[in-house]
């Protein structure tokens, strides 16, 4: 009896959760589906679900007309470069804060976080001016540096929370065995820190990939990443739903897949350890 009630309850929750999940996912599903239709089928009334001639021509057209690969490459370089730079700067900082805390550590961490709260639009002109001054406008390196700086607080913070979890007892044991400072870092601490560093890099790659204020305002043709590439579809010519869908699918697919691996890091990275 009790078991039957339990099963019944489970069926109801399953149906409810799946329904809501599918509704939330629908816009993405619809975009992916439409990317395989022809332009005429894309606007067919009633909407076509699976009964259409699947085609890949939109992908070919998007690549041919707007050189998708160039924007993809820009996105990879900018997001990847800013993440690597950020990690390189953040590791020593997070390391020293986690293992050699001083009375200032907390203040520094919170202050770093506070720089993240600076509204971008408030400093749009100064940054543009500096970009013009240093010839960085519409360059990948300029954008790489800016995205590194806006994500640096999150990187430091995440690494700090990971490093803090490395148990001190292991270090003590290594020292008892006569490990030197260098050996301690390379053979004891680094292997334990690598998963945390990887997770941090992953989340920040995603954040940099999707950043859409500076990438829109500081690039034109040369260094524009996918965010700007997609924005160019906001003033359409003629029928374009299928092409828009193909372009969108290509822009989000890489990060959608990476994102599924980073669910847990998302909570840690964006709540600064305040929710566990």
């Amino acid at each position: 009896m009790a078991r039957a009630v339990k099963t019944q309850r489970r069926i109801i929750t399953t149906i409810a959760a799946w329904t809501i999940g599918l509704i939330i996912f629908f816009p993405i599903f619809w975009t992916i589906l439409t990317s395989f239709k022809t332009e005429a089928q894309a606007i067919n009334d009633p909407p076509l679900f699976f009964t259409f001639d699947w085609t890949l021509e939109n992908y070919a057209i998007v690549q041919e007309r707007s050189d998708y690969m160039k924007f993809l490459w820009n996105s990879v370089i900018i997001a990847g470069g800013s993440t690597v730079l950020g990690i390189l700067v953040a590791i020593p900082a997070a390391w020293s804060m986690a293992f050699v805390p001083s009375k200032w550590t907390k203040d520094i961490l919170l202050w770093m976080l506070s720089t993240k709260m600076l509204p971008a639009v408030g400093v749009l002109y100064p940054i543009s001016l500096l970009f013009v001054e240093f010839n960085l406008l519409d360059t990948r390196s300029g954008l790489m540096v800016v995205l590194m700086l806006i994500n640096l607080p999150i990187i430091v913070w995440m690494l700090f929370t990971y490093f803090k979890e490395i148990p001190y007892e292991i270090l003590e044991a290594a020292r008892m065995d006569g490990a030197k400072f260098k050996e301690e870092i390379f053979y004891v601490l680094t292997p334990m820190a690598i998963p945390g560093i990887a997770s941090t890099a992953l989340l920040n790659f995603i954040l940099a990939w999707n950043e859409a204020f500076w990438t829109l305002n500081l690039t034109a043709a040369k260094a524009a990443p996918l965010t700007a590439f997609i924005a160019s579809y906001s003033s359409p010519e003629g029928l374009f739903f299928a092409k828009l869908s193909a372009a969108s699918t290509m822009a989000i697919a890489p990060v959608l897949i990476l994102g599924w691996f980073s669910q847990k890091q998302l909570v840690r990275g964006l709540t600064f350890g305040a929710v566990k």
Partner: protein
Amino acid sequence: MIFVPSWMGPLSAGKHHAMATKASRSTARIMMAPAVVLLLGWMLVPLIMTLYFSFKRYLPLRGDSLERGLEWVGFTNYSRFISSSSFWPSIQTTLIMVGGVLLITVVFGIVLAMLLDQPMWGQGFVRILVIAPFFVMPTVSALVWKNMLMDPVNGIFAHLWRFFGAEPVAWLQDASLGSIIALVSWQWLPFATLILLTATQSLDTEQLEAAEMDGAPVLKRFWYIVLPHLARAITIVILIQTIFLLSVFAEIFVTTGGAFGTRTLTYLIFQRVVDSQNIGLGSAGGVYAIILANIVAIFLMRIVGKNLDE
């Protein structure tokens, strides 16, 4: 930017403290330097420039230039920014948008978190479906919603409306702010859900079961046990989202371009700087935006800071 230190007191002496020797302390300082210097520069240089411009008349299109020197105008830009006819509407739009998105994401986030915490088949898969929108870049979300869903002729909503014999709605014109709220809520619901779900999972189930045995009805259990447990997570969601929502940009940029009553404070400043090239006025607006964000930030820092002591 924010001067928080005094109320927080010294960092509690952790177990790592024992490691610190004098030599390692100075090494630690050197290791921290690059990050601190970079962020200090990133914060101070543009901020000082914005402050400087906000006290100047600076209209590049009318011949003002840095080389020839800018005219000092005191607080004129500040008062003009506030007294302009678009300022209060933009504040109102900002508040409605942020408030609307917060209300939707927190309420549905709680519902979804409670639901996803129940035993079911395919839980992992549903989780993936629910979280997916967070990873879609803002320009894609905005264009997909604008065209594929809300287009008054060919959008899915138009098809649905016609199917039920109703007149399709031109969403981004006739219900523009509501449409933006729906779109932004869709983007942020995954974040709220994920954090509230994480918090829900740390709930003490024994306490809930005991309450159930004592015959407490579902709503009471939710109100007196679940909600207080989630209180902190909800606060965190609200604060973090507020900071991000105050600077929503791409979603407006590619949908309405600030027209039809969707001009938020962020977008108004953007237009002053980029479209009308009034740098002084835009900078004064920027200072207001910075102050507004900091009011929210202080509360967030307080919670995060307390958490560091535990």
